[in-house]
């Protein structure tokens, strides 16, 4: 199953449309489950899958668990959640020029974030189909190495020390 999610804060029709087009041409052969916050004006209606507007944290976790591939905006939450569960994830950044976010931090995320096994970064809708194809090819081969559940122990130890003593 492929899980497409735009998050619950802002619509992201450019991604939904690009995935819809890709599904039509690439025929990935997986069921698409989509969580899409529709645009307030003239929302895009996907032809190849149904979309739900909201998911409870429990439903979200259940769907993510079953997904072979996650497609989302370049949000740190979705990236971290997918990588800790060993899921393939393909992300595309929201951009201010399309009115998709308040600033271009998601572009920075895609540019600055290191490469992790299972993480596929598309720059825009033109780049997306190739990245999705690459992600699909890697599903069958090897399971991506999941990142750990916790941040680096050096970081959490320093924080704990500050919590307890007020000193760094």
């Amino acid at each position, binding site marked *: 199953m492929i899980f497409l999610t735009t998050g619950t804060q802002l619509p992201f029709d450019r991604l939904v449309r690009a995935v819809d087009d890709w599904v039509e041409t690439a025929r990935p052969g997986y069921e698409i489950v989509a969580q899409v916050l529709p645009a307030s004006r003239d929302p895009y209606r996907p032809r190849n899958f149904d979309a739900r507007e909201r998911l409870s944290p429990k439903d979200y976790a259940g769907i993510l668990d079953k997904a072979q591939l996650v497609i989302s905006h370049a949000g740190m*939450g979705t990236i971290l959640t997918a990588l800790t569960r060993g899921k393939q994830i393909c992300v595309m950044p929201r951009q201010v020029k399309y009115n998709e976010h308040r600033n271009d931090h998601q572009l920075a995320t895609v540019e600055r974030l290191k490469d992790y096994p299972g993480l596929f970064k598309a720059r825009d809708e033109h780049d997306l189909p190739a990245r999705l194809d690459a992600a699909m090819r890697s599903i069958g081969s090897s399971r991506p190495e999941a990142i750990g559940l916790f941040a680096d122990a050096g970081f959490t130890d320093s924080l704990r020390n500050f919590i307890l003593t007020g000193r760094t």
Partner: protein
Amino acid sequence: MSSPPKLMVVASAGGHWVQLMRLRKAWQGLPVIYLSTEPGLADIVASTARAEGNPPPDFISVTDANLSEKRRLLRQLAEVFLAVLRHRPDVIITTGAAPGYFALRFGKLFGTRTIWIDSMANAEELSKSGQEVGKHADLWLTQWEHLARPGGPHYMGAVL
């Protein structure tokens, strides 16, 4: 503080929350009150604490709001204020966004020790709230080394 410090852990639901939870070893075993914007997280917090052998934490849900929703933001501000007033934590730790900012500012009124960890999503510049909160946070952190400055924000690590 002779008894273990009481901690309030604050993040809006979504990416801020996911990042903060990756740091939970920092408060393992300490009394914790979680505050977020999604009531459904209460179950997850409770089951995680149980699975990791920690005492059941308190969980407070406040109104979700973004910066363009002034009325909801005001309601959130009031709810965060009441939560800080009622629980009087010794330490507040947050990754943002708005509820974390409010909690930190209110906490300072009561002499709370405060920690701001700017979201890893801000790789080119700090968030607006992250820049503004710097002078109020006792520990002011960025998760990107190239954004650290001698006077803060400082870099101690990242959640990934």
